[in-house]
């Protein structure tokens, strides 16, 4: 839902200008050649891989809130529900590349992929190295197909955090790509949406309202148990892995209910697997209706150092 005074094309620029006014010193606007909005972290990229995220315009905080010190280095956002622009991604990546290369992270949707892919080509033509990581965590999508065909969901919030940690720790672009591909393959998100009038729960509803793959009438506890069952069946956590649990409310569920659901999920998961941490918050507010997206990330020894401690973002702790 959007309410404008000016055209769609001004939206992201006004959004980012508001962010700068609220948090002076945290970000800066990138001076683009084109009518696209790019926000850059105030923390310079010095001898490390630049992490660039991008998405269509939608609620947030992911993607723009995930730019800043100890988070991603820049974000390109499109008009509402429109893919980010390839040229804008190319421009800012070129400007931030210190020679160590650029990591392009985005949710696996066609428009986002196409634009990042084109940006990568434009960068390559000018001698910059870029690697794309399309986040594909939504287990409700592309059922029965390869994991890589799944769409992206709330997992991009965790992936951004890992990518930033890896960059700040000085990993090379190739090392980062290996690490992030592992995280990508060991992560799944399930959308649990609920009609609260009749307690009808739908598992696996898609980002663009694609129907889910399972429904049932139940309360929160039962839904939490089913969610954990479906996610752990999808991932089969290994003995050397701990599990990170993330709960993201949909639009009509609040801070309170996300934690109540988090409590049920935690107790259900705890009984079966060692929990590394639970993150609860409105990281990506992507879908109308009542419910949650629930993400599991299996974390082994190699991944763990990139998930230590918590980071205070604008509107979330991750």
């Amino acid at each position, binding site marked *: 839902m959007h309410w404008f005074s000016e055209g769609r094309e001004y939206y992201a620029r006004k959004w980012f200008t508001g962010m700068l006014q609220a948090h002076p010193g945290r970000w800066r606007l990138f001076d683009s050649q084109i009518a696209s909005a790019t926000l850059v972290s105030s923390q310079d990229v010095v001898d490390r891989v630049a992490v660039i995220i991008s998405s269509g315009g939608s609620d947030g905080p992911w993607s723009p809130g995930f730019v800043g010190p100890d988070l991603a280095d820049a974000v390109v956002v499109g008009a509402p*529900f*429109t893919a980010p*622009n390839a040229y804008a991604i190319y421009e800012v990546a070129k400007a931030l590349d210190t020679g160590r290369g650029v990591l392009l992270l985005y949710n696996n949707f066609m428009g986002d992929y196409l*634009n990042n892919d084109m940006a990568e080509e434009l960068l390559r033509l000018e001698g910059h190295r870029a690697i794309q990581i399309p986040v594909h965590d939504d287990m409700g999508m592309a059922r029965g197909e390869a994991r890589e065909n799944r769409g992206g969901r709330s997992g991009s919030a965790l992936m951004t955090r890992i990518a930033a940690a890896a960059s700040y720790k000085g990993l090379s672009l190739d090392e980062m790509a290996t690490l992030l591909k592992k995280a990508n393959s060991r992560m799944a998100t399930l959308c649990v949406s609920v009609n609260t009038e009749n307690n009808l729960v739908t598992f696996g509803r898609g980002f663009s309202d694609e129907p889910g793959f399972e429904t049932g009438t139940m309360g929160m506890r039962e839904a939490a148990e089913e969610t954990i069952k479906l996610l752990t069946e999808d991932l089969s956590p290994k003995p050397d892995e701990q599990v990170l649990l993330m709960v993201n409310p949909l639009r009509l569920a609040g801070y309170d209910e996300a934690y109540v659901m988090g409590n049920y999920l935690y107790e259900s998961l705890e009984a079966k697997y060692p929990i590394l941490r639970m993150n609860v918050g409105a990281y990506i507010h992507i879908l109308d209706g009542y419910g949650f997206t629930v993400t599991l990330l299996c974390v082994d020894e190699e991944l763990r150092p990139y998930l230590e401690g918590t980071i205070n973002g604008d509107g979330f702790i991750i």
Partner: protein
Amino acid sequence: MRFANALALKKAMIDAAEAIIAAEPELTRIDSVIGDGDHGIGMKTGFSVLREQLAATVFPTPYELFHASGLCLVKCMGGSSGVLFGTLFISGLDVIKGKEALNGADIVAFLTKGIQGVKSRGRAKPGDKTMVDALLPAQSAMELALKSTDDIGEILKAAETGALSGVEATKNMVSRLGRSKNFREQVLGWPDPGAISVSILLGGLAKSLSQGL
């Protein structure tokens, strides 16, 4: 005509851009039913800027013309189709590098490479109900025409006809890529908007390059 220089090609691109701009209502209507409704506006925006930019610039060779055209579409269109139409003009650039004017074979080679670029970037397979389903029959038709004529207008006219048969065929396809995937069987009976745009673009080029000598 048998050779088209940068000036003729620029005029053809401007004429094609005008055809795209004029088709905006139809494209919007169809993308609103089977997609997210933004295809017409995106094309209109991009090709309007392209028209202005081309009109204001002198291009020494076709290479500079198409390089600028491709980048222009990528810069100002956004969405999927900005990249895809940009790719169509950028991927084949190396085959025309250094040429003062293009003959029919050059144009077929240039577009074929562009079509391959769209195919490999978009990963769409034939039958996925995308612009690829217009581009591939256009390519075959051009190649066939080239065997019997060296008139650029006629070759592009064949390409347009091929594209239009592709548009017809997309009516019976179920989308597998992008947003319109969500509508599944409901898209049957409707053509793919990106495919229509391809046919209009090729038709505009053909018409422009059939005129004059």
